[in-house]
Every structure is written in structure tokens, then in C-alpha cells.
């Protein structure tokens, strides 16, 4: 598969279909990291393994900015897993990038391991999001590499089980749980920065006029920030769980977004990014629907 990825990248760079290919490479101390390949003779840096956890769609908007001011925006080649491809559909639906400027190298993914993407860490078991993934094949691509193997799809994972466990607690117990989580948070904003759907030029959390939330790194501010971010992602989060991976303190952001994903699926029968045309549930309505309030 690595050879195919490299060959495709080489081809699209040589025939100038794209100006840049974003994929994965080997970093230092055993880490896998995002790679930015701008010429065909660098494609041998590209790899593929079970530590390619990063959601490369996150870099799309940033890398479109051309190196010279009056040049046209860069055309990009992207190596995409199934979840990343759905994230790209979210961007396409929101008109953030024209499809014609992208060449998508879809890769069939058998799942990524925990602690991937960090220096010196030993890879763990399959990540919870991968354990329950029923897709494996990206929904949008220009080239598809790899074949779907019949690997096991878990019924449930620690994330859904934890959601159930929280669901049967009293509101007071849940508040204590979340307060402990938010108290640890440093407001480093890594979760927001790594998320492909969080692309606002000025984040609500940093707006000074109106000031939604102050600059304090205190529990009330952090509670507001995470509530707000999860809500702004409702129906747009694809469940890559990169936010939870990057958090240095291990705040359970995957649970916050999983809650919305489950509700949106159950109430509106909608999963983010399945295609690039359907409106997000919160951007539309049905006049006669009967929703519990």
C-alpha cells in the first residue's frame, strides 16, 4: 500500500495536478507525523501504518493560502482515511474549499492504535473510534488504495460504555464528573486547533467584543468553552477523536462529542460528512416534526 500511495503522489505532483501532497511520514523517536510533500522526489517520505492517526483535513484550509500573494490558491493532494474523508465532506458542504482543487487519495484503513502520533510512546490497542468503525473505506476519493478486509467490528467501545455509565448517574454526579474533567483542562486549545471542523478565524472563546468567556483558566470558563465547542460541532463532528488524543491532560472530549453524535443520529438519522450536499440537521428543519423539548 505504501508503494501505491507514493506512486499516486508522485504522479499527481509530476503532472501538476496538485502543488502539494499532505500525507504521513516517520518522525523522531518512533512517532508518525503529518508530511507535506511539494515535489515528486520527496514522495518516498510517505508511509502508511497503524499510527497514521492525524486528521489531515485539518490542514486543508491553511495550506490553500498561496506562497505568493497574488498566486492562485494551492491545489492539494490529501491522504484520507474514512473518518478524514467525512471531515472533508463537511468542509465541502460548508463551501470551505472547491472540490476541483483537491485530489483525494483515499486509503482503506484497518484502524489506528492508541498513543499513535506521539514521540516515545508504545502503541496500544485499537483506538475506541476504530473499534466500532463500520466504514473503513473513505466515502469520497479520487484514487482508492487498499481493499476492505473482513476485520472485526466491535459492538461497542469504552466511549459508548462510558456514555451509558454517565447516563444513569444523577445530574449532580455528572456535574461532579465534568467539573473534575474541566478543572484539569489547561485551555491550550489543542483540541480546537486539531479539529478540521473548528476553522473559525476568530473563535467565540477568544472574542473580546462581545466577550462570551473571559481569559481565565478557571473551571467556569473552561466549562463554557467545552460546552460551546461541542455545541458548535453538533452534526459536524465526524468522530475522529483527535481532540481527545491531543489533550495533554486526557480530558474526555471524545465523550462530549460522542454524545452529540449519538443524539443527532438517533433524532435526525444523520451522520456528519456522509456526503457533501446534505445540510447539517441544525441548519434545517421539518415543520411537522415532533421533537422532545
Amino acid at each position, binding site marked *: 500500500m505504501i508503494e501505491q500511495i507514493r506512486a499516486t503522489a508522485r504522479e499527481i505532483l509530476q503532472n501538476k495536478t496538485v502543488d502539494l501532497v499532505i500525507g504521513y511520514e516517520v*518522525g*523522531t*523517536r518512533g*512517532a*508518525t*507525523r*503529518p*508530511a*507535506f510533500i511539494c515535489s515528486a522526489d520527496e514522495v518516498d517520505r510517505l508511509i502508511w501504518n497503524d499510527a497514521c492517526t*492525524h486528521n489531515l483535513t*485539518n*490542514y486543508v484550509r*491553511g*495550506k490553500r493560502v498561496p506562497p505568493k500573494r497574488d498566486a492562485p490558491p494551492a491545489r492539494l493532494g490529501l491522504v484520507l482515511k474514512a473518518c478524514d474523508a467525512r471531515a472533508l465532506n463537511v468542509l465541502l458542504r460548508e463551501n470551505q474549499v472547491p472540490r476541483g482543487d483537491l485530489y483525494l487519495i483515499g486509503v482503506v484503513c484497518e484502524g489506528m492504535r492508541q498513543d499513535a*502520533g*506521539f*514521540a*516515545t510512546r508504545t502503541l496500544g490497542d485499537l483506538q475506541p473510534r476504530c473499534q466500532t468503525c463500520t466504514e473503513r473505506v473513505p466515502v469520497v476519493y479520487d484514487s482508492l488504495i487498499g481493499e476492505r478486509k473482513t476485520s472485526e467490528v466491535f459492538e461497542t467501545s469504552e466511549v459508548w460504555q462510558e456514555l451509558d455509565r454517565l447516563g444513569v448517574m444523577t445530574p449532580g454526579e455528572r456535574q461532579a464528573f465534568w467539573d473534575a474533567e474541566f478543572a*484539569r483542562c*489547561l*485551555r*491550550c*486549545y*489543542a483540541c*480546537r*486547533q*486539531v479539529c478540521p471542523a473548528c476553522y473559525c478565524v*476568530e473563535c467565540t472563546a*477568544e472574542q473580546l467584543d462581545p466577550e462570551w468567556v*473571559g*481569559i*481565565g*483558566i*478557571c473551571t467556569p470558563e473552561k466549562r463554557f468553552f467545552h460546552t460551546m465547542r461541542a455545541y458548535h460541532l453538533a452534526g459536524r463532528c465526524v468522530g475522529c477523536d*483527535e481532540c481527545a*488524543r*491531543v489533550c*495533554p*491532560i*486526557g480530558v474526555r472530549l471524545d465523550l462530549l462529542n460522542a454524545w452529540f453524535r449519538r443524539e443527532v443520529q438517533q433524532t435526525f438519522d444523520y451522520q456528519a460528512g456522509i456526503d457533501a450536499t446534505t445540510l447539517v440537521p441544525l441548519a434545517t428543519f421539518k415543520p411537522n416534526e415532533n421533537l422532545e423539548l
Partner: protein
Amino acid sequence: MNFITHVQLQDWLARMMKDRTVIAPTRAIEDLVRYQPVNSPDAIAFDFTRTAISPKEFFLPASEAILTIERVRQIAAGSNNPEWNVKLGEPELDRSQVLFAIRPCDTHALLALDALLLQEPVDAYYARRRKQTTLIGLACEHPGATCFCTSLSFAPDDSNGMDVMLYPVEGGYALEAQTEKGQVLTDNLALAPYRGERPQKTWLPAEFSVPPRVVWTQLFNDPHWGRLADRCLSCKICAYVCPTCRCFDVRDYIVAQGLGYQKIERLRCWDSCMAEGYQRIAGGHNPRPTKAQRLRNRFYCKFDYYPADFGALACVGCGRCIEYCPVNVDITEVLQSVAIKGETLATNSTRL
């Protein structure tokens, strides 16, 4: 130098906890050791190389009300005119602090911060905490996976800056009080003298050396910074886990308001030059709008500007940034590639 057994250590800490806040490493969630105030010696974790987050949060808190203004409107006896009674407050520690088991790298970081913050004009809030905190250092026994203090000419058993220093030995620790503050804590300890050589560890050879300032100056416009920054997320993880990063944001907030009453806090909070909006000034201009400029600034601040201005490296080799960066921006990789480029430049220039 004296010898303290494990049991004697627990007793000593327990006695300290009666009238001081003892901050020690504890296991917060799995695999995450952090310095936190503890109420019992049992809560202390000893099996760690260095903590996840640096202890700078006890000297430069993540959020601190550096000034509190309380205004109450009163009418003085015998007068018809209301006046505002203003009370100003600054953060005070209600008890003195002991930071137990601080590693040599983290103490080096405090010494580096002292070079800036204890110099005129003194940062009063940092200075107060620094003065009221006694540092009990613990020499390292083995290197962490990302440690590189020796490459910066520091040592894992360096007692520089510690008030009391502990070296792990058979059956306990070799203990030495080095300052008056340290002696205050150790005065009432009945300890046997330590009969042995001063413990020394030489287990982490220096792998590289820090390129001199002139190399950094020459490489300022090198395209390497842009390529490095491609994958950078502009989050603030590296700055927040770092023991020497100290940049902040300040803003005033009305925290309570009523009829004839107002309480205002001036909040100082961590911020980082990595954030896109950090340097944006009134009017909207941003001197460092690109990721490349910001990431470059991080390394230049540590290895060029800070040493030039304050005489100390703003990096101590703890390796936390390497461990927690989600996209593998590795400071040792940067240092080594700057060194290699520096050599190429030197070779090329001698050919002239």
C-alpha cells in the same frame, strides 16, 4: 550530608504538612504525574522521571487575580455625602509552601525565570511565591525518554538552586540542606550522617550542543522554519507544559456588582506566542501572522533572545514539549538541524 530513611522521610513530610502547604508529585490519572498539594505522604508518587506539567504553576499560576479592587459606597457619620471606600488586594499565600521532589531541570527553569522576573522591575507576584516556597530537590535516577538536560550542559543531580537536596541511595536518601530556608526545615531532624561518596550519576551523555547565537542569527530567514511549521497546530501545549515559558495575558473583570458595591479583579492568565492572536495589537496588525513566524519565534526566544537579554537559556532539557506535541515538533531535531546548517554555513564562509 545526612542520611534519611524512607520512614523518616514520611514522618518529616507529615510534620511539614501541619503548618505548610506541601506540593508533591501525585498520580492524577493513569500515567500522568503532576505536582499537587497533598495532605498525606501516602499520596506522593516516587516512580516518575519528571512530571507531565512543570511546577511553574505554583510560581506563575495559570490564572491569578494579581489585583483585587473592592469599592463600597459609604456615608460617613456626620456627613451627607456618600464616598467610595476602596480596598486593594494582592494575592497572598496563606501558608508557606514546600515543593517536594522538584527535579534539577525544573529548578534550573526557576533560576532561568529568576533572571527575568526578579530583575528590576521585579514581578512581585512571582517573587512573593518564590520567597515563600522552599524547594526540596530530588536527584534523578534514570533519564526519561525525552530528557536532554546534559546536552544543554545541565546535570540530572545538580543541586544548584535547591534549598534542600535529596539523592536516592540504598535504604533512603542522602540529604543536604543548602540554604537558610532549607535549614529551617531540617533543623529538628535527628539524622545520621551520610557515610559515603556524594552520589553522582553520569548516565546521560550529551548528544549534541546548542548552536551559538551567531548561527541562529544567520538562519533567521531559512525556509526550514516554514517547512517545520507546516504540521504545527498553533496550539499552546508546548508552552503550557514548559517550565520556562512565561508569557501571559491580562484583563480586568467585574466579578461582583450590586447597589453601592463593586469588586474588580485584574486577571493574569497563561498565554503563548504560539497562538495566532497572541501578538495582535490594537488596530488589528499582527506581527507574526503565520505559523512559521510563530514557531520560529519559539526557538529563537529560547536559544537566542532570552540568553542575550537575561544570560540564561530558556530551555532546560526536560523534554515535555517533545512528549506532548501531537504532531512531533521535536526541539532536539530542531537543535540538531540548526547545528548542521550552522556547520554548512561555517564551512561555506571559510571557503571565501
